[in-house]
């Protein structure tokens, strides 16, 4: 009978992505009986040294597929690697991060294995009666939540939105089993060729990792408004993010977008400036610890989720606020 939870570990350039650690943490929480295990699938080239850190973060076992063909992510070879591990382990559940790689790979694997796949989940739990995995995800742009089950097929597969689950702290007293699985790759596994890899030079942090976010919407008026938000963010040691409207208007880069089609964030402070709060936006930020919203329109839906809602003009309040915080900090010292 299928058992155990398999977590696909996404690594890029030998660095394990946070979402994979979040999934290891979640998988531990889903384990019902002591006989079940969390198994990490680590695929790549010369990545074996990462295996220990996966045990520390919650894996009981790590299965490694190490081959030169896996150096840079390609659909064909990675599908073959993950499928081989699934066939060997016969898991009950397989989890992937809902990143661009996870959402390229998981559907390919599910089609090959002939099982169901639920995309972009934001909650996972085990049904106490049936033992099936309940996979909850937003649909219709976040307007509706749907709980999906895959009762007749195994494994039950899901991609899970980054930033939603919580990773466990590293516990280096944990130990586990490691195993290298040899997969027989052939030249025909890769039907496409990477001519070039263009890495984005990271000027700024990933917004999903910021402790404070000052986020701008249409209400800031134009691209220059982000300069004003940046100054406020600097006083808070935070970063700048955006609603979809500003990205569509070309005021700021897409990787700053919070929401259903952007990123999910849960910072200690989310300050929504001139954001009306479409449901698609709320879906990406409502788990933030403290939400402060400033908006001219006193019926803006953002106020429904704000811990502190201020009706007023962001273009007046934000510069004054930046100044006030600077003064406050000086006095405190």
């Amino acid at each position, binding site marked *: 009978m299928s058992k155990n939870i398999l977590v696909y570990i996404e690594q890029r350039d030998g660095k394990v992505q946070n979402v994979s650690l979040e999934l290891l943490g979640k998988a531990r929480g889903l384990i019902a009986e002591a006989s079940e295990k969390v198994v990490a699938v680590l695929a790549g080239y010369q990545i074996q040294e990462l295996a220990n850190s996966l045990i520390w973060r919650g894996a009981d076992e790590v299965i490694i597929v190490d081959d030169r063909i896996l150096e840079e992510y390609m659909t064909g070879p990675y599908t073959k690697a993950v499928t081989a591990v699934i066939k060997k382990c016969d898991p009950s559940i397989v989890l992937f991060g809902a990143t661009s790689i996870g959402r390229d790979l*998981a559907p390919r694997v599910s089609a090959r294995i002939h099982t169901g796949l639920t995309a972009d989940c934001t909650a996972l739990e085990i049904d106490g009666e049936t033992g099936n995995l309940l996979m909850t995800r937003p649909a219709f742009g976040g307007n509706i939540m749907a709980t999906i089950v895959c009762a007749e097929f195994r494994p039950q597969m899901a991609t899970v939105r980054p930033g939603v689950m919580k990773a466990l702290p590293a516990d280096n007293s944990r130990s586990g089993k490691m195993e290298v699985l040899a997969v027989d790759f052939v030249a025909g596994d890769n039907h496409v060729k990477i001519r070039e890899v263009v890495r984005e030079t990271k000027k700024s942090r990933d917004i999903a990792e910021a402790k404070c976010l000052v986020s701008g919407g249409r209400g800031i008026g134009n691209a220059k408004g982000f300069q004003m938000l940046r100054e406020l963010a600097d006083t808070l040691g935070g970063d700048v993010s955006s609603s979809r409207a500003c990205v569509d208007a070309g005021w700021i880069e897409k990787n700053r977008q919070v929401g259903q089609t952007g990123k999910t964030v849960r910072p200690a402070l989310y300050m929504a400036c001139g954001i009306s709060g479409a449901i698609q936006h709320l879906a990406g930020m409502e788990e933030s610890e403290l939400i402060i919203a400033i908006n001219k329109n006193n019926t803006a839906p953002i106020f429904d989720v704000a811990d502190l809602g201020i009706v007023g003009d962001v273009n007046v309040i934000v510069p004054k606020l930046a100044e006030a915080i600077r003064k406050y900090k000086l006095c405190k010292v």
Partner: protein
Amino acid sequence: MKIVVCIKQVPDTTEVRLDPVTGTLIRDGIPTIINPDDRAGIEAALTLRGQAGGSVTVLTMGPPQADVALREALAMGADEAILLTDRAFGGADTWATSSTIAAALRKTGFDVIITGRQAIDGDTAQVGPQIAEHLAIPQVSYAGDIQVEGETLVVRRMFEDRCHIIEVTAPCLITALSELNKPRYMSIAGIYDAYRKKEVTVWTLADIEDHIDTGNIGLNGSPTRVKKSFTKQPKGTGTFVDNASPDEAVEIIVQKLAEKYII
């Protein structure tokens, strides 16, 4: 080059509203559109036809009303349109949907298949890659640019932190991002042709039966089921300040930040 574009007719989700009493989706009067990523796929196909020659076929699976979406694609310049419609296809999840569409593609034949990355109603991004797997052809997802170099397509695949410049040859499947291009408008002559000269071919299950195991279609062929759907409960407003001057507002915010030890 035979290019087939798979499209989906979707409700314009920016217009979707919930019934405040029942909490269900109000569908009445909601306009439908061609899914934005798919529209970029149509444009990419038309551009590719311009560079490499060949034909563009648009294909959709949906209710009979999806005819409108296909006519729009014809009016943009597509050569042929196929509507896959049958009650037996209803209730399909991404696995069954991709199996059904793959069967139709086996029948049409293809060199290059283009789909949108994901549809704005389901947001799964699964059907494109699953079609490619069913047809055992390579996929290049998240295409931000497509160029033709002889027999080779050079595709820019956009990931979060990097992009890959990828060389691929037909047969293959590409999933298009809406950032890929600015789709052309329908021309007046195009609209005329779409309704008077061109045809939408309708295929039911009987037309593709030779290309699929009928156990793999519709609700019965779907590994996943929706167990329940619900609306999220808003967490509720905290302090709401409607009538403060900017200076008062600033003071209230600073107090709050201090109280929460953020400053």
